[in-house]
């Protein structure tokens, strides 16, 4: 009888679990798109940086919605918390180092994640959705009322980030901000790939499928979801801080229900439960919005609506999810 060693078991693991290959391709695609974007739209780097900031919000939403099955229409609260924290420390406390501003954004996002998680995770399904809507309105109203700190409806201005690592000034064309954004996105994406494949990522996928079963395995679904909410908040905080640093202004729209709903739309468009899906959805939605709103400023929302209906009807797994399923089927057929 032949003995099976652990090495044999590891060697025969399926391709999708192998490290390296897929990640490197993914990172390669992100960097290639970033370079292409830089040369294709040299006068529109601000839009590209904005896309990156929103992509971070959608990735963050994917962590709780796509991987854990939490329904939320209030996720911009985490993004806005990060944006306001980064902006406030610069505008009111003179902390202008972009890395320090980023750190404040991350911490504020994580704290907002903790608060939102503590409230939202008390319910399931529709009540959960309603709680999330209530939360985003509360956050919005709080930012509106605390105008001495946030600038209220006028927005928070006076944000003046200093040179990045003391070398690269944030220029008028937005080159430094763009490169900063790309680096942040690559770093966050890499870390999230590790997390979603880790034991914790596996635990969250299991919770999404059957929380009662997880309890009978001795794990607390609520504790795990809270942890994911905090991680998600930190990621959204990165996006918010990037937005504050790159635009040097923070408005109430970064804490709005509209932004929360749009981020969910982007996630569904790209495909939930996949980091690539979150990225695809953001890029497609924001480009579509930019191009169509320029082409037809009166009816662009109708066209966005039509695109969404088409995706939901014909590609229910989202653009990336459907493409990935198609490729997988072709591979199996071979």
């Amino acid at each position: 009888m032949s003995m099976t060693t652990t090495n044999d078991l590891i060697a025969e693991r399926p391709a999708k679990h192998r490290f390296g290959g897929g990640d490197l391709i993914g990172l390669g695609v992100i960097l290639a798109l970033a370079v292409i974007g830089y040369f294709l739209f040299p006068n529109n780097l601000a839009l590209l940086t904005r896309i990156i900031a929103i992509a971070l919000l959608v990735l963050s939403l994917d962590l709780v919605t796509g991987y854990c099955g939490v329904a939320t229409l209030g996720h911009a609260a985490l993004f806005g918390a990060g944006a306001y924290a980064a902006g406030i420390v610069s505008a009111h406390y003179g902390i202008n180092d972009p890395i320090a501003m980023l750190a404040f954004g991350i911490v504020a996002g994580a704290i907002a994640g903790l608060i939102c998680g503590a409230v939202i995770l008390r319910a399931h399904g529709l009540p959960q959705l309603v709680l999330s809507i209530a939360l985003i309105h509360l956050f919005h109203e709080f930012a509106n009322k605390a105008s001495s700190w946030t600038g209220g409806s006028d927005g928070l201005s006076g944000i003046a980030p200093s040179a990045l690592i003391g070398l690269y000034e944030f220029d008028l064309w937005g080159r430094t901000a763009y490169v900063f954004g790309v680096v942040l996105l690559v770093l966050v994406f890499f870390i999230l790939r590790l997390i979603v494949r880790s034991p914790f990522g596996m635990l969250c996928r299991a919770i999404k499928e059957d929380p009662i079963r997880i309890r009978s395995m001795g794990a607390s679904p609520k504790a795990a979801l809270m942890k994911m909410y905090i991680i998600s908040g930190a990621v959204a905080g990165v996006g918010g801080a990037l937005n504050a640093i790159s635009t040097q202004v923070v408005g109430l729209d970064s804490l709005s229900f509209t932004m929360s709903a749009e981020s969910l739309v982007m996630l569904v468009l790209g495909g939930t439960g996949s980091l690539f899906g979150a990225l695809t959805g953001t890029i497609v939605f924001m480009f579509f919005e930019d191009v169509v709103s320029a082409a037809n400023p009166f009816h662009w929302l109708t066209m966005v609506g039509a695109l969404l209906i088409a995706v939901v009807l014909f590609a229910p797994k989202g653009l990336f999810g459907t493409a990935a399923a198609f490729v997988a089927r072709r591979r199996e057929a071979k």
Partner: protein
Amino acid sequence: MQPIFEVRNLKRAFGGLAVTNDVSLSMAPGDRVALIGPNGAGKTTFVNLVTGNLVPDSGDVRLGGETVTGIDAIGRVRRGLVRSFQVTRLFLDMTPAEHVALAVLQRDGRSGRLFGNFLAMPDVMDEVGQLLGKLGLRDLMHRKVSEIAYGQQRLLEIAVALALKPKVLLLDEPAAGVPQSDTGRIEQALADLPADLAVLMIEHDMDLVFRFAKRVVVLAAGAIIFDGSPSDVTQDPRVREAYLGSYANASHAA
């Protein structure tokens, strides 16, 4: 021998109806006990009280000498009281390897780790391979659970339970819904359960009960009416009355 699992005077009523009525039961390590009873006897309520999914009106549940009545279901699992489900509750999008690995990691307090993949953890994969191998699921370890047969899913339920290294295992109809051709595999798995593990099996299939159990407990109308050897159970007049009574009522109702 010191009991590993004890239930003392457990009571629970729903709206005046005593569904669990002063039940006491004790098990030692290595015990193989079958809990049987006609429909509506209160078996499910009993399991829920024992696992911590229901709070008793009075009485105690003790595990390894510790009173766990006030401890929730998760805490009881962590102390070694593990159950399997009558209808499989598995994660359909995940693989058998992921199921067992998750149980192993959870048991060792590593399920919250943010980095590293279990496939690259030799100690975890060793255990996953061994457990799935013992239950004949090794070749399917990387298939999605939704793609494997029901009988194999039942075996995976047992594998997940064993991966948690329980002291007391509650098996809720482990062979329910399994085609005749696959029951042999499940019976073998039951026969191969660790010798020091205390097993309480809730089962309707009397053939399986007689082959597996060294002791049979009969629950009727929320109370234990028999606790003894399998050879005596069919001769006991109260047991016959409980079963025949229920059949008689059933035929009346029909």
